[in-house]
């Protein structure tokens, strides 16, 4: 896919070899670039699978009344859309970026554990395929929401054990990926690449990897308890046997809250990498960015019950989780201020990666604002489980994580393929996405405040107009993303011409990946590079 042609460093006595021929190259590869490419392509495919489910949801919600799907299937769609997007699209895409970029950013020849790297990718594919297979099982796919709350999820038909096993596989895959990232960053940095010289993308992924190792086993434990409750007569979550359904929610959100940061911290990292390049200025407050990321990661472990303000927490719990959640605004604010200060008095140009990154800062901040509103526990008694929260987390995921993934694509495609993408179509893609994503999600704030609950296939008439607007936005947004596929294919085939090694003006000041040729050779940094003095520190 990447059109990477092995450029052997013939003068090395080290016997490196190029990729295998044919399909085997992809199946048995241990090369970080090949595996990175596979993760990215897989993530993109799943983005369209999850997106199709979103469009089924938005079609049904286009007008009041039930037109297209059965309510049970609608519930399956909301559930599967979330699971596919989280575990099939966003997480794999960031793992793909980590695979491609971390070794190149720290001057390492490959990931530390290349065979495990291959295994974690194929485990992911197996896990997602198994999850997708549940759609065709008797009783349908899981339909209790991606949170898989009991007792509802225990009413799933034949699909339940398969979905649980799929979660186990996805978890193992994530843990292996995380171990690999940590081992690589701790052991494979080029001499002179101290921790505080690492690009922020590497830093944020290091912290993300620790989050993953901490939380995935918790999720695996929670779903295993579901399994034994359903099949082995345990009563972890069944009051009749002395259990408590709310216990599941505590365990799930102990996983679930850090999980959403797993999707946003690497996003922060890429934004912090791209913005300085196009502002032609060093990143403002490098050290505070690192500390803020660590602070957000730490806080993510102690705020979980803000997802549960209405389950009947004791008053001390309400107050504690409200205060702790509010605190997240401080490090997050620091990040937003730092990005703004990085742009301040810069020499900005607005190529597609920069456009997506600026839109990310603005729209993610809007998601942050609604997050702050919801941290206020009493107000959350109104917002909870309405479209207001749907709008909130989509603002922090779509124009944040997805926009930054798109930005990464445009930013690094020339390095990956050796060709420049078509800037005009890139900008068209940006403007269509940036406008439609707001038509799609902004009205959902109104719907939520006006009283529309989430996860309903049909609604009262007063919600009709904004739902229609939202659905129109969804279709424009969804179909605009096909432009990205076109651009990727076009760029691989030659794009608008050959890219230089540096690609972006003075980019080599900002990262080691811009010091190797474009396309990046199959093996890079087989001898450690000399670390260029970086502006930060």
């Amino acid at each position, binding site marked *: 896919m990447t059109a990477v042609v092995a450029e052997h460093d013939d003068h090395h006595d080290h016997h490196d070899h190029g990729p295998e021929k044919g399909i085997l190259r992809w199946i048995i590869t241990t090369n970080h670039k090949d595996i990175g490419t596979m993760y990215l392509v897989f993530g993109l495919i799943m983005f369209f699978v999850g997106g199709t489910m979103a469009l089924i949801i938005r079609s049904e919600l286009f007008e009041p009344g039930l037109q297209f799907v059965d309510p049970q299937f609608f519930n399956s769609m909301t559930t599967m859309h979330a699971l596919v997007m989280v575990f099939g699209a966003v997480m794999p895409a960031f793992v793909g970026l980590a695979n491609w970029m971390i070794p190149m950013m720290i001057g390492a020849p490959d990931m530390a554990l290349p065979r495990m790297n291959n295994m974690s990718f194929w485990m992911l594919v197996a896990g997602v395929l198994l999850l997708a297979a549940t759609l065709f099982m008797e009783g349908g796919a899981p339909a209790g929401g991606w949170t898989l709350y009991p007792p509802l999820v225990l009413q799933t*038909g034949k699909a339940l054990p398969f979905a649980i096993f799929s979660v186990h596989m996805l978890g193992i895959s994530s843990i292996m990926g995380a171990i690999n990232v940590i081992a690589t960053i701790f052991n494979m940095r080029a001499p002179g690449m101290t921790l505080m010289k690492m690009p922020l993308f590497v830093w944020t992924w290091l912290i993300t990897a620790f989050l993953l190792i901490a939380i995935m086993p918790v999720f695996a434990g929670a779903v295993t308890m579901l399994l034994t409750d359903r099949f082995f007569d345990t009563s972890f979550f069944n009051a009749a046997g002395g259990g408590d359904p709310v216990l599941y929610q505590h365990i799930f959100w102990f996983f679930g809250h850090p999980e959403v940061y797993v999707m946003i911290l690497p996003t922060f990292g890429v934004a912090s990498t791209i913005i300085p390049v196009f502002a032609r200025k060093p990143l403002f*407050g490098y*050290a505070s960015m690192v500390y803020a990321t660590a602070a957000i990661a730490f806080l993510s472990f102690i705020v979980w019950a803000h997802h549960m303000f209405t389950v*009947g927490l004791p008053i001390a719990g309400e107050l504690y989780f409200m205060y702790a959640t509010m605190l997240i605004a401080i490090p997050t604010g620091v990040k937003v201020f730092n990005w703004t200060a990085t742009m301040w008095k810069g020499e900005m140009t607005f190529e597609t990666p920069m456009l997506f990154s600026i839109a990310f800062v603005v729209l993610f*901040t809007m998601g942050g604002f609604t997050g702050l509103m919801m941290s206020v526990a009493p107000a959350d008694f109104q917002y909870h489980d309405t479209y207001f929260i749907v709008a909130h987390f989509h603002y922090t995921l779509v124009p944040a994580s997805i926009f930054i993934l798109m930005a990464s694509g445009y930013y690094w495609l020339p390095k990956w393929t050796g060709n420049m993408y078509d800037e005009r179509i890139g900008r068209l893609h940006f403007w269509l996405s940036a406008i439609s994503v707001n038509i799609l999600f902004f009205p959902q704030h109104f719907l939520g405040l006006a009283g529309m609950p989430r996860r309903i296939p049909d609604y009262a008439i*007063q919600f009709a107009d904004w739902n229609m607007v939202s659905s129109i936005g969804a279709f424009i947004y969804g179909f605009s993303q096909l432009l990205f596929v076109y651009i990727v294919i076009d760029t691989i085939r030659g794009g608008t011409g050959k890219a230089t090694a540096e690609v972006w003006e003075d980019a080599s000041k900002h990262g080691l990946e811009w010091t190797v040729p474009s396309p990046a050779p199959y093996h890079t940094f087989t001898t450690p590079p000399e670390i260029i003095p970086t502006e930060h520190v």
Partner: protein
Amino acid sequence: MKKTKQLLACLVLMTLGLGTAHADYTLNLMRGVTQVSNEIYDLHMLVLWICVFIGIAVFGTMFYSIFHHRKSKGHKAAQFHENTTVEIIWTIIPTLILVAMAIPATKAVIDLDKVQDSDMTIKVTGKQWYWDYEYLDSGLHFESHLDEASEKAHRVSSIDPRSVPNYLLNVDKPLVVPVKTKIRFLFTAADVIHSWWVPDLGWKKDANPGFVNDAWTSVDKPGVYRGQCTELCGRDHGFMPIVVIAMEKEQYDAWVKAELEKQNALPDLSKQTRASLLLKGESVYLTNCVACHQIDGKGISGWYPALSGSAKVTGDVHQLIGFVQAGTSKMPAFKKLPADQLAGLITYIRNAPDLGNKVGDELQACHALSLDELEDIFPDIDNAPELCKENGEVKLDKVVAEKTN
């Protein structure tokens, strides 16, 4: 045409970043009708304005920079990359803002928690997919289901939901409460987790199976307040609304009295025409059965059995009555269904063209009763209506659904 125009207007206004104050839309949270809901509304507006203010400052700076500090305008990049003073300032100011928000928020949390010293208690049980209300003080107890018009409209594609008043937000029996009275609610659930939300009251609370949550309200002014279940609870989660009617104390007392009389009244055992039996049966079916067995009686393959052509439904009528009253592991027991409703239901499911069954019989309320049940109603059996007896004698086991054609 009007619709398209409205839509266009919305799109234009939205892209301009403006809200529209059109009467058809609610854009903001409602103030509600309780002290707590007002408190929450004020908190919401406070935090909203703080966000707007910070947003203007941050985005303003950013856009100023984007317009002026660009290469195309010949701006040269400065090379600063940190400033401890600025960084300390933008850490401390947000902290102070958060403290300012936390103070009124804490007060509201404490107010929400004050469930003690209530004047009356209502126990709310969430069930798939309706609410069950029990007034613990007066003993009034009833179920509240989605109203028939909405039930039909969302199941039959030829009915336009826009023609149904309060589509999906109307129930057959609303919860009635007195105004200016402190009401304690107890929440629990029978099957899965539900959540009871009426925006005008200012809060929602989860109903967890096997546990009891509480919350309180005191409604300031009479009115009809509507809400919905807000915790995904399965296939018909979107179809279990809540309607609360708040009325003056005297009216409320009269309502309770009337309802209690109805609740304790004897079932209507008089002979009904076939048409009225079918009509009553349809209503009972739409309330209690349609969620699983569906409007066409075909059920859902793999989930809920079909009634159309089912031998259980079209077979022996006494066995069918027993089955409906006993329930199964999946189906609730309809033991408390009054005889007249049971008779209507049985007649309906055996004969309704909509369900595709055509046994060609009818069941009168009297004949839906067992001897024991009849004796409960009429301790002196001689007082029972003639219809319940055969040739002046009670021989219920011999009474079968009468063939009518």
